[in-house]
């Protein structure tokens, strides 16, 4: 018995040692690729974002986007970050082609991998205001870390922040003004918008989630476009789950249902079941065929330039014909 214990111990240790040797190669290539573009000359400059000052080398190509919002902005501006976070082990597919195939996975969006980040030697890290303080503190040791706000109202600031960092400030400005022009045009051509009540739902973990008036796509739908806002929305703090029965009581004219597969592992057939639900079928929007599933990809964060522009395009194409 005792000998067995000894043997097991020895085996375990040898197993471990074998395990660590094989990992070496992948990391070596990662550090090499990051060394190659150190030649960009840049000076430390002060940059202000949401009333906070940061000292960053700008303009720089060595950016790590550690929040989905920043990744959407990067995709919109055509910036190719060194690394980005993943959801469920993968970069959201609606972003992966725009961000390039060389991008390094720096870990999960709630707990980025600090070792990979360090090896990338970034000049700046774009974090998320959803981070724990301990995560931010660790990231600050690696490089100046700017936590990008996840509030929808700061979308312009977010875009211009990345514009400044990457030296594409003009492009950021022109994107914003293009969007605003397009928005005005849509409002003019569809004056009846203010009589249509609309609700956007997101399915998370197999539950319908309703959002508060300042979260997700809601500021765009209600404040910018001027759709009618059901009263319930004002009572929602951030994000709340809602049952189909409760939702049927709101009974809006148009319903958007957003479903991202990686947020709903184990609930793949949710949409099918929802469509078959008799209460769901009895709603006005369903009867008038005004329920839109994934009008834009379910992964979009809602409060970024890319999310908004995509939504506006789809609204004009599919909903407000």
């Amino acid at each position: 018995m005792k000998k067995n214990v000894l043997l097991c111990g020895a085996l375990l240790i040898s197993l471990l040692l074998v395990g660590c040797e094989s990992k070496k190669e992948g990391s070596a290539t990662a550090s090499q690729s990051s060394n190659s573009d150190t030649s960009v000359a840049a000076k430390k400059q002060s940059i202000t974002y949401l009333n906070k000052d940061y000292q960053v080398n700008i303009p720089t190509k060595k950016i790590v986007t550690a929040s989905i919002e920043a990744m959407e902005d990067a995709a919109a501006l055509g910036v190719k970050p060194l690394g980005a976070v993943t959801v469920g082990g993968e970069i959201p597919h609606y972003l992966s082609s725009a961000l390039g195939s060389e991008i390094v996975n720096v870990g999960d969006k709630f707990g980025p991998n600090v070792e990979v980040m360090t090896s990338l030697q970034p000049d700046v890290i774009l974090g998320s205001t959803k981070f724990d303080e301990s995560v931010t503190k660790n990231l600050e040791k690696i490089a100046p870390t700017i936590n990008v706000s996840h509030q929808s109202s700061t979308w312009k600031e977010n875009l211009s922040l990345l514009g400044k960092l990457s030296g594409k400030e003009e492009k950021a400005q022109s994107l914003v003004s293009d969007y605003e022009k397009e928005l005005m045009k849509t409002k003019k051509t569809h004056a009846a918008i203010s009589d249509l009540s609309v609700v956007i739902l997101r399915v998370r973990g197999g539950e319908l989630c309703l959002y508060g008036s300042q979260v997700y796509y809601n500021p765009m739908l209600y404040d910018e476009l001027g759709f009618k806002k059901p009263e319930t929305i004002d009572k929602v703090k951030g994000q709340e789950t809602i049952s189909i029965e409760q939702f049927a009581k709101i009974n809006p004219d148009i319903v958007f249902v957003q479903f991202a597969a990686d947020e709903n592992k184990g609930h793949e057939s949710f949409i099918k079941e929802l469509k078959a639900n008799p209460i769901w079928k009895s709603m006005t929007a369903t009867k008038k065929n005004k329920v839109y599933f994934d009008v834009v990809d379910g992964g979009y964060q809602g409060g970024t330039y890319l999310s908004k522009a995509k939504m506006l395009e789809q609204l004009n194409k599919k909903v407000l014909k």
Partner: protein
Amino acid sequence: MIRNYQALLLSIGMFIVLFFVALKVGTISMSISELFNLLFFQKGTKEASLILFAFRLPRVLSACLVGICLSVSGDILQKITRNTIADSGILGVSSGVAFGAVFYFFLLGNYQTSLSAFQSISLMSFGLIGAFSALSLNLILSISHRKLSMFRFILNGIGIGSGFSALVTFFSLKINADDYSRVNTWLQGSISQVNWEKVVDMGAWVLPSLTLLFIFYPKLSLLRFSDTHLETIGFSTTFWRVFFIVLAAIFICASVLTAGTIGFVGLLVPALTRLMFFKKQQKGYLYGLCFNGMTLLLFCDLCSKMLFTPNELPLNAMMGLLGIPYLFYLFLGQRKEQQK
């Protein structure tokens, strides 16, 4: 039969090897010479020293502390309840601590990870209150005719554990929907984001308690005898029981607050150490327990960071992978004994 000191040397040897492996291996691997140059002569690239000293070393140390806490508290609970399947997870104590902590964040209004000294002390006290309420609720429910029914004790523990987990979910959703997933990540057990402050914070609770435990360990061993025997030699069973329960609660609390609820450690480590050590009541056994606990947690943490790099597996899930086969082994062993 291997002797106690041989077993201890084996434990220490395994620990030292794993400690250095844990420092060497990571998502970014270092060569052995690089590691030693950094550790002893502070020579190396800026990135390498940042990875080692700011990220890897605190992580390894907190894995060690969590390992000590869970295995030592498992041993205390097992000796006090005279039952080898007692464990902070099974008895519902961990969930009690988690509930206390989440309730504190609920009162505070939001979930945050960097706390002032006053806040971290009050967080600790809420955790302790949670631990005690879970444990005393269990004791009240399990004592019938002034005798503790072991079978009930375990079953009640499992029930109380799930009850408190449900309350944790309820209150973490009450705080803020955004915080829910953060609380969840914490409770699932992750030490990937620890820093030196947290290690010092945790050490400040664990090391004094550990010293106390080492000083009074012989008393704990005495508790295995029946109460009537102990009373005749003038041994105050109630006092020492409460004393050790408080120690166990502090250990569990410190570990849950840093690394979330991690099950099975308190079950596995004492059992494995018992296999190695011949004399189970001596301090050598306690040393062995500490070293093996550290080794196991280091091993688990290594697996949890290496299996799906750069993404991580929660520690609790990793521990379950190791712990559940052991539970089956226990059941099979019992069945064989019954057949004889």
